[in-house]
């Protein structure tokens, strides 16, 4: 027994059961979004095998949805890869944000963990790690369960794609924004965090309207977090 297991809420619970309980919201978010991806991929000309392989190998919700749109629009392969890179570059910051908590981990374990780090697993882990819950069994359990839900949703979407001609009437295209709303609310820990969120959102919108179509998220994130740091430094100097 390591300290991470002891510090979790229910001591008798096995890491896998605990992982499942914590991942449940992600599962319920991933299955419909994975489903939407599966349907859209089919309509964009991807074979069933390629549709599932993308969920297994790339495992990045928004990038996959954007990519199938590009495949449908007959974009060049290099353009699709470049867009994926820019869209997923935000994970660079998330990965860096988790780094201070995983100091005891081996390189190979970190390499394996990174493979399944998405917006949603990140949001879950950042809370757990801050509480000292870095047990590898539970951590990898969460990641594997989350990806299984994503791949499962994809397979369901593939199977149903012939039945569904349009996903809009059932609101499936809102699964992703709704998930971001829920994750964002869970992260608003202080007034400074709220201010950073407002700045990042407004800035990202302005940059996107200005024509920065793919890098607006990254640019807005870096600038807003830097302003947050500046404000923190300034207010703590005022109060001391």
């Amino acid at each position, binding site marked *: 027994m390591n300290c991470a297991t002891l510090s979790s809420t229910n001591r008798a619970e096995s890491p896998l059961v605990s992982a499942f309980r914590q991942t449940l919201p992600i599962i319920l978010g991933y299955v*419909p979004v994975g489903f939407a991806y599966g349907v859209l991929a089919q309509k964009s000309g991807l074979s069933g095998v390629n549709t599932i392989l993308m969920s297994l190998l790339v495992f990045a919700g928004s990038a996959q949805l954007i990519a199938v749109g590009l495949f449908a629009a007959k974009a060049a*392969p290099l353009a699709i890869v470049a867009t*994926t890179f820019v869209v*997923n570059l935000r994970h660079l910051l*998330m990965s860096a944000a988790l780094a201070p908590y995983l100091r005891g981990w081996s390189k190979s374990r970190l390499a394996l963990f990174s493979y399944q780090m998405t917006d949603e697993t990140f949001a879950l882990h950042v809370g757990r790690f801050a509480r000292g819950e870095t047990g590898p069994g539970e951590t990898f359990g969460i990641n594997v369960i989350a990806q299984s839900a994503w791949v499962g949703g994809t397979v369901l979407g593939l199977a149903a794609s012939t039945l569904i001609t349009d996903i809009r009437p059932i609101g499936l295209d809102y699964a992703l924004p709704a998930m*971001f*709303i829920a994750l964002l609310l869970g992260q*608003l820990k202080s007034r400074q965090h709220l201010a950073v969120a407002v*700045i990042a959102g407004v800035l990202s*919108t302005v940059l996107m309207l200005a024509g920065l179509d793919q890098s607006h998220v990254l640019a807005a994130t870096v600038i807003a977090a830097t302003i947050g740091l500046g404000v923190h430094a300034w207010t703590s100097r005022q109060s001391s």
Partner: protein
Amino acid sequence: MDQQTIFLTILGMMAVTYVPRALPLLALAQRTLPESVVRWLGFIPVAVLSAMLLPSLVITEKGLDFSADNIFLWAAIPTFAVCWKTKSFVGAIVTGMGCVALGRLFFA
């Protein structure tokens, strides 16, 4: 595009997705970061989530859109409210998708 080219594109997507996920963890996890860097990194989750969310709510094919037709924007209000009150991730998603579906059914 033939399926083999699509598969090679997927492999490319895999590589460019994995490297940014792994590199900072592999490079930074073994060392102690200055307090200001840790604080800066602490702002990243809210910043990145908000930067992804807000444009998807307020920008439509018409540009900046605060009109009554922008269902995504108005559906965000009950979604926020339900999530705030119930703290339920699932409740937020069901509310959001339900509002968008109903909005399209009655107003679109």
